[in-house]
């Protein structure tokens, strides 16, 4: 094992932020080195320094033993450093091969492209990776997982010996993650050094050899993955030990049914789904990506028209043809994509909280009572413990966890008592996750009925009073919440596809 990268005492300032404080990191050939830390800990900044996107203010950077200054993405590529960004940096309108060789297209002196050579080179790359891929396919039509393969191929096409992956599995399902891991292992076997940034503890444990933890822009420590308990790493990340909490399941036998769904059907993704949800209950929806969980939520919420099915709220049948109907019935849906569907990022916290309830805060002429809105916003800042300088802060400047709380405040103000959360902690760091969990539990304790859709099994187990599992548009079973249910039991139901196809009972 030789040292591929040694970064020492790296300093980086942004206006108002000391992003990296004499941080250090090293990478050897043939290892997967995980870089962990909460959001804002400086992981991505550190890797942007390594890949030439940011110039450091101080510190030294050695690649293959020699001190270097990396002046830009191209210089990093020349040093054999490839980065796969969290937000995939592909051009959806171009083909696979065109994406891989962007900027290095085989061409003649007149700038005329040699498309055949381009496609052949891409085919060769995928053959080397042992991945089936058509180089002439348009990237737009590929799944996220396949797009990631394209990114990896692109990085490898630079003869990269150093591969940086920023949250590569954020949008992948279990099977796709496994495929990615087998590719990573093959690369490791070939002597490539892989920097792996992720929030997912179980993955880190599965794939990495060493773990380096950063906190607040500074280096905390490096440990061997094998033999280090997860709790140790988490406490390194948050600077304190998180206690292992199990969900407490309330006795809901006497509770009123808040939401009853019968025979909900829409296309292939929602097939005859029936369930009911009581006041004060947290129902987890588990399943692989593409199992139809989000589609169920959207059909209930009226965001997509349903083909058949009945919905009753508090025992009364309701006609839901649009999100407006759903909100009037007291159902709200908190999308996983807060920035697109949940928030007006450029507006302040006060405006966002009042967004769905403006009619209550305005008079007959349409004048908004801004002062009253401000008082309500202050109340929610206090009750939900939203960390913000004031209710006039633009929400784009808040952290992911606090943004999520603003969305929750918006719906609470609208008097919603059935709350559907789609991936409530996506993009939220470990410390803030626990806070969101506590918030959901206290909302349930106040009598709200809550559905939580999550792709992270530990999260489903940590939160749910009851777990519904979906596979290919069907509900394949319910499991009780709490420690007696295992991830394996959920996975069995989530992959109950064969039984379904044969028409046998799952």
């Amino acid at each position, binding site marked *: 094992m030789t040292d591929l990268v040694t970064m020492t005492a790296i300093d980086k300032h942004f206006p108002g932020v000391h992003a990296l404080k004499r941080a250090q990191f090293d990478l050897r050939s043939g290892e997967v080195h995980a870089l962990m830390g909460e959001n804002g800990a400086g992981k991505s900044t550190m890797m942007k320094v390594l890949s030439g*996107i940011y110039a450091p203010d101080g510190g030294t950077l050695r690649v293959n033993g020699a001190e270097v200054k990396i002046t*830009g*993405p*191209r210089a990093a*590529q020349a040093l054999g450093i490839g980065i796969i*960004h969290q937000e995939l*940096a*592909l*051009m*959806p*309108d*171009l083909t696979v091969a*065109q994406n891989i060789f*962007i*900027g290095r*297209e085989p*061409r003649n002196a*007149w*700038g*005329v*492209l040699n*498309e055949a050579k381009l496609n052949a080179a891409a*085919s060769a790359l995928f053959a080397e990776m042992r991945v*089936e891929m*058509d180089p*002439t*396919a*348009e990237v*737009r*039509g*590929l799944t996220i997982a396949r797009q990631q393969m394209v990114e990896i191929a*692109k990085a490898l096409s630079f003869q990269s010996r150093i591969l940086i992956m920023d949250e590569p599995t954020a949008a992948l399902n279990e099977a796709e993650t496994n495929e990615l891991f087998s590719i990573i292992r093959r690369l490791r076997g070939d002597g490539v050094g892989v920097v792996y940034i992720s929030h997912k503890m179980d993955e880190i444990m599965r794939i990495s050899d060493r773990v380096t933890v950063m906190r607040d822009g500074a280096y905390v420590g490096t440990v061997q993955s094998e033999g280090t308990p997860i709790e140790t790493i988490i406490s390194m990340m948050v600077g304190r030990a998180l206690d292992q909490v199990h969900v407490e399941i309330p006795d809901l036998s006497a509770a009123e049914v808040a939401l009853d769904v019968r025979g909900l059907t829409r296309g292939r993704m929602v097939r005859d789904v029936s369930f009911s949800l009581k006041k004060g209950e947290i129902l987890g929806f588990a399943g692989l990506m593409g199992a139809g969980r989000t589609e169920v939520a959207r059909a209930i919420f009226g965001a997509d028209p349903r083909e058949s099915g009945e919905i009753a709220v508090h025992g009364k049948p309701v006609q839901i043809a649009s999100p407006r109907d759903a909100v009037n019935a007291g159902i709200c849906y908190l999308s996983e994509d807060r920035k697109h569907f949940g928030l007006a990022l450029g507006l302040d916290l006060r405006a966002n909280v009042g967004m769905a309830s403006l009619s209550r805060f305005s008079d007959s002429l349409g004048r908004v009572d801004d002062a009253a809105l401000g008082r309500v916003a202050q109340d929610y800042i206090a009750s939900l413990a939203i960390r913000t300088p004031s209710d006039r802060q633009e929400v784009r400047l808040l952290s992911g966890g606090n943004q999520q709380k603003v969305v929750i405040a918006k719906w609470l103000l609208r008097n919603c008592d059935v709350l559907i959360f789609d991936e409530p902690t996506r993009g939220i760091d470990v410390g803030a996750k626990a806070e969101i969990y506590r918030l959901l539990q206290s909302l349930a304790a106040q009598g709200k009925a809550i559905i939580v859709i999550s792709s992270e099994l530990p999260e489903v187990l940590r939160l749910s009073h009851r777990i519904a599992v979906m596979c290919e548009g069907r509900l394949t079973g319910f499991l009780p919440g709490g420690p007696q249910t295992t991830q394996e039991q959920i996975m069995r139901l989530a992959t109950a596809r064969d039984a379904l196809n044969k028409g046998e009972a799952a």
Partner: protein
Amino acid sequence: MTDATQSAAIAKPKAAGAQQKFLAFASLIVLLIFFSLASPNFLQTSNILAILQATSVNGVLAIAATLVIITGGIDLSVGTLMTFTAVIAGVVLTYMGLPLPLGILAAIGAGAGCGFISGSLVARMKIPPFIATLGMMLILKGLSLVISGTKPIYFNDTPSFPLISTGSLIGSVFPAMPVPNGVLILFVLALFIGWILSKTVLGRYCYALGSNEEAVRLSGVNTDAWKIAIYALAGGICGIAGLLIASRLNSAQPALGLGYELDAIAAVVIGGTSLAGGRGSVLGTIIGALIMGVLLNGLRIMSVAQEWQTVVTGLIIIAAVYADMLRRRKAAS
């Protein structure tokens, strides 16, 4: 390679693009059939040639606009840039009395130069394309009036000048096909730019910039330089349009030009190029320009008042984009 699932995966998006062009083409055919039934004069050779001749200027401008729009930008200055280059040609040929080839070079060069400036404003100074080219549009309109002294410049000293547009190279070889040179220039240019877009590095970066500029930049490509080159190329094409219109009118009309940019953008949009960037084709744009030309000509032949022709053009633009949205929505679900 010819695995069934793989070919299905690629066939989908490609078919969608083809469908888009087919839709525009089918609309064109429907219009042709409609007008030929409505008026016996419509399908006469002289009228068809008149349509093509009338389309040539808008078509050339639309090709320029297509390049910029594919990069995700917009060029509002194509119309007044056309006028400006016509005035420049007038200055070189009539005021200075220089030979014709120099006038042609000056017009195309001035166009490319202005495009270079627009591109620099967008790429280097990060001014949004809408604003940068809006500014250029007004600057060029003003400059055209200033340089010409607000009067038309005639090309009476250069007798061969009108032949650029109205002469017929094809007709001199095949007397049965008196296709005006303006139309010939439009189609040759369309083939050439179509080739640039599909076969050259410049074309590849056009689509790549419109698709995801940041990704291109992170790949180590000098995105600013390429963007400037694309705007400059578009500007040069506007110079060709300037020569065409000046040659057809045998004069550079400095007050002309405003409004042409909207017709050009309309043709691009009807032809299925996405204003969001990343997709589009010269073929689509040519079909779009022809749809507009056929529509205006047909309505005129049917004696529809000019003000109503404008209304119909507006409706067609909205209908074309709405049809495209419907198709996309269907493809997405």
